[in-house]
């Protein structure tokens, strides 16, 4: 039990002493007595310098620059996330990574100074490449697979929760899905791509097309472009009914409306396997999903 107010009470082992001892044991096993750090800064400071962009300048006696960079990096990174998937977002993220790389090169500058010019350049490149390969790319992989990912669709860029699990999809849920390339309507051909649209009906639902609306299990929904004006269908198992939003890339002169409706209808059953993600309704300042009544 510590007696901090007693002048002759010794400092006691901290709560993390077992981990500390394990670390020392590992060092002893590898016969490394002390982990070398640039400029003989402490190991903790060195690790902080690696992970906190800009902090290296504080450690190497440039506190004003360091503090400014430590403050700027999260702003750049946040802006990069806010504009994720857009060019300006890439620019902000690129600046944030560059700042981090600069910080790391400055962190190891006492070591670099001992090298010749060619080795110094190579070592700097290696530091930057190492940062990207061992930090940012794994981080990107992790977030893109588990948390969020930007996807460029035919309607623009959208940030989605990456999932291929159809469980969370309901009527009215917007999804990002792969479109299947098809041909066979004369001059009309549908290219593969990524589309972004709401699910109007689930497997087994009955869809009835009329001139006034599209009826799903008896509920009227607004008609969408190029929907048939009559007829009905039952959504097959393992599919959703999603009215395609195709980007017309060629001259449609001479293609009759019936052909276009037939093409659209053929694209409207989206297999579960084509799901690429469910967009966040809002991503920072961006409203991504419009409200759609089921």
């Amino acid at each position, binding site marked *: *039990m510590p*007696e901090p107010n*007693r002048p*002759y*009470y*010794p400092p006691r*082992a901290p709560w993390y002493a077992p981990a500390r001892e394990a670390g*020392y044991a590992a060092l002893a096993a590898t016969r490394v007595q002390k982990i070398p750090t640039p400029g003989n800064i402490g190991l903790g400071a060195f690790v902080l310098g690696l992970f906190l962009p800009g902090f290296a300048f504080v450690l190497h006696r440039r506190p004003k620059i360091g503090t400014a960079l430590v403050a700027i990096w999260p702003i750049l990174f946040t802006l990069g996330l806010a504009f994720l998937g857009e060019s300006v977002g890439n620019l902000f993220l690129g600046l944030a990574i560059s700042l981090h790389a600069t910080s790391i090169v400055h962190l190891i500058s006492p070591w670099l100074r001992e090298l010749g010019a060619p080795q110094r350049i190579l070592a700097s490149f290696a530091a930057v490449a190492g940062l990207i390969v061992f930090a940012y790319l794994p981080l990107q992989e992790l977030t893109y697979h588990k948390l969020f990912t930007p996807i460029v669709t035919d309607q623009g860029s959208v940030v989605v929760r990456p999932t291929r699990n159809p469980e969370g999809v309901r009527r009215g849920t917007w999804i990002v899905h792969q479109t299947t390339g098809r041909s066979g309507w004369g001059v009309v051909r549908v290219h593969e791509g990524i589309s972004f649209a709401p699910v109007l009906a689930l497997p087994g639902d009955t869809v009835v097309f009329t001139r006034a609306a599209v009826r799903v299990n008896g509920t009227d929904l607004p008609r969408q472009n190029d929907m048939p004006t009559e007829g009905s269908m039952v959504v097959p198992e393992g599919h959703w009914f999603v009215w395609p939003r195709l980007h017309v890339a060629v001259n449609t002169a001479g293609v009759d409306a019936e052909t276009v409706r037939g093409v659209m209808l053929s694209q409207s059953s989206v297999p579960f396997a084509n799901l690429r993600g469910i967009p966040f309704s809002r991503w920072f300042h961006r409203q991504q999903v419009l409200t759609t009544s089921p």
Partner: protein
Amino acid sequence: MSRFRNLEFEGQNDDAFQPQQEEVIKNEVYYLGEAQSAFEAADFELGLRLYARALEENPKSPAAWTGQVRMLLELGEFREAKAWADKALETHPNHPELLAAKAVALGRLGDLDEALAFSDAAFEERGNSPFVWLARADVLLARKEQRAEYCFEKALGLAPRDWFVAWLAARVRIYYEQFAQALKVLRQAIEFESARFMLWLQRGECELALGHVDAARASFAQVLQLNPLCEAAHEGLRQASSTGLGRRIAGFWRRLTGS
């Protein structure tokens, strides 16, 4: 003086309102004695605090400084023990027991050459106490040298029939997992002083480590006779009751290898 002191109450003995015994003077000597008692009862936390109190009374007390470092060693806080030994050596740079204590800390931290150097320094300062020899044995065991046996003999020879030194020797053996030798020393210590529950407790732990489950149970039972509240003995009994095949094999192996 209280004006009620001559009143008599039923059921109270005559001494109840006698003036108090002579007040204990809580000086360095008092705290050192209390700390030694705590050490002997293996209450190292209390010992550490009492040695700190002794230092408050006399900041230059080498016994208190040494005692604190030894408490930290017994608590397994070797890095803190080394740091505190360094601080103590600022005041007493040539004190053999402090040098020896630092040697133990270094040895247990794996700095074996430095440990030996400090142990040598302790002897150069004419350190010839049991603790200096035990510290030497500790360092040599850390270095896996056979000469440690001689140091143990010297330590025990300097304090014949002293259960405390024998117990300390056993603790060093236990730290280096020499349970069979530790058990031998503990049996001797119990011959000298059989009323110390800590000796029985450590004997039980050694017996348990060697797979002598029945003997361990008997030792823990002795502990509980001497100190019914000893949680470690209850825990030892629980372990002895749940001794599985793995522990028995490990114990057999230890007996076979004599460790």
